[in-house]
């Protein structure tokens, strides 16, 4: 299943399932997110950690290929910026889309901010950083 149509179908199914799942877990709810990050309620944390645990086991059983990746100079600063932005705005790149879908209209501003940040990063990297950042989408 590697044709263009099959990959398109897989992306549509994945998007629908991801949006549905993430919304029903509560990641789009700022109060729930803050309760997770401050350990007042570990339900969402266990959802995330549990998912990682299941994926590790299944990938190990199926011997799924491990993609290479090195810890380049942008990983830690980038992760610090991302963590700060996530705690403030309540959105990782998928969540503002889900917040808008749930009726939170101000999350459109977050979506615009994410788009500006992504374009800014590619521009800054080409001009100043020159990092081979790798990509999670490969």
């Amino acid at each position, binding site marked *: 299943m590697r044709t263009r149509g099959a990959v398109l179908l897989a992306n549509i199914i*994945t998007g629908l399932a991801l949006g549905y799942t993430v919304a*029903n877990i509560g990641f789009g709810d700022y109060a729930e997110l803050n309760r997770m990050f401050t350990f007042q309620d570990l339900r969402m944390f266990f959802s995330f950690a549990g998912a990682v645990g299941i994926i590790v086991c299944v990938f190990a059983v199926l011997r799924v290929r491990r993609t290479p990746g090195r810890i380049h100079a942008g990983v830690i600063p980038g992760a610090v910026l991302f963590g700060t932005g996530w705690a403030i705005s309540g959105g990782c790149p998928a969540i503002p889309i889900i917040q808008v879908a749930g009726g939170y209209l101000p999350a459109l501003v977050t*979506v615009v901010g994410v788009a500006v940040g992504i374009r800014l990063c590619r521009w800054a990297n080409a001009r100043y950083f020159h990092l081979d950042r790798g*990509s999670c989408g490969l």
Partner: protein
Amino acid sequence: MSTYWPWWAGAVGLALVTINYTLTTDRSFGVSSAWDRVLHWRRERRLEQMEEEFTDDQALAEALAAATAEHFGTGAGAPTAPQVPHQMPYGESQPPPPGVEQAADETPSVTSTGPAPLVTQAALLVSIFLGGLIAAFTSGRFQLRYDMGPGFRDLVTADPVTMVVLLFLGGVLVGFGTRLAGGCSSGHGLSGCGRLRPVSIVATAVFFGTAVGVSFLLWKVI
């Protein structure tokens, strides 16, 4: 009682999404990467066209080689078709060095592939919206509102102008940070940690730890 799913249902749901995508497309799945490619669609489209042309060139070279072999034979003195060097049009990806992950690469059904086609990445983002919309309506949580809910109002700000400024700045940090780090909570957190990639484990620990620190500041200090 919370109207959200229990933790185990969320864990199974997120795991199924990630595993299904990985097995059906032979790619890691990452939302920030999809965003990045869709936002730079002109450049990405050019790269896709270059790759298609390269594929055509390779097919042409192989056909020429076959025709040459048929005509002249395959002896040592026979002319050969020119070799087309393999190009990596996507500058962000690199092939693994020789010897790396040899054991894992023995899986017969898995092949090395480039990024998913651009249109499929755009479809992913639109589908996330539709999935969220379906969840909001079927759960009865959909409500058009001009704020981010009581949690944001109590913990961050109740002022609409400050809210807009902070959401924008937070979004910029998320966008810039995820691309600088090479992934987000889905790419590094689910796919990367699921594959036990050291870079993903480090990135996830750092962005989660930072979010914990900032959230405590918002909750207890600010």
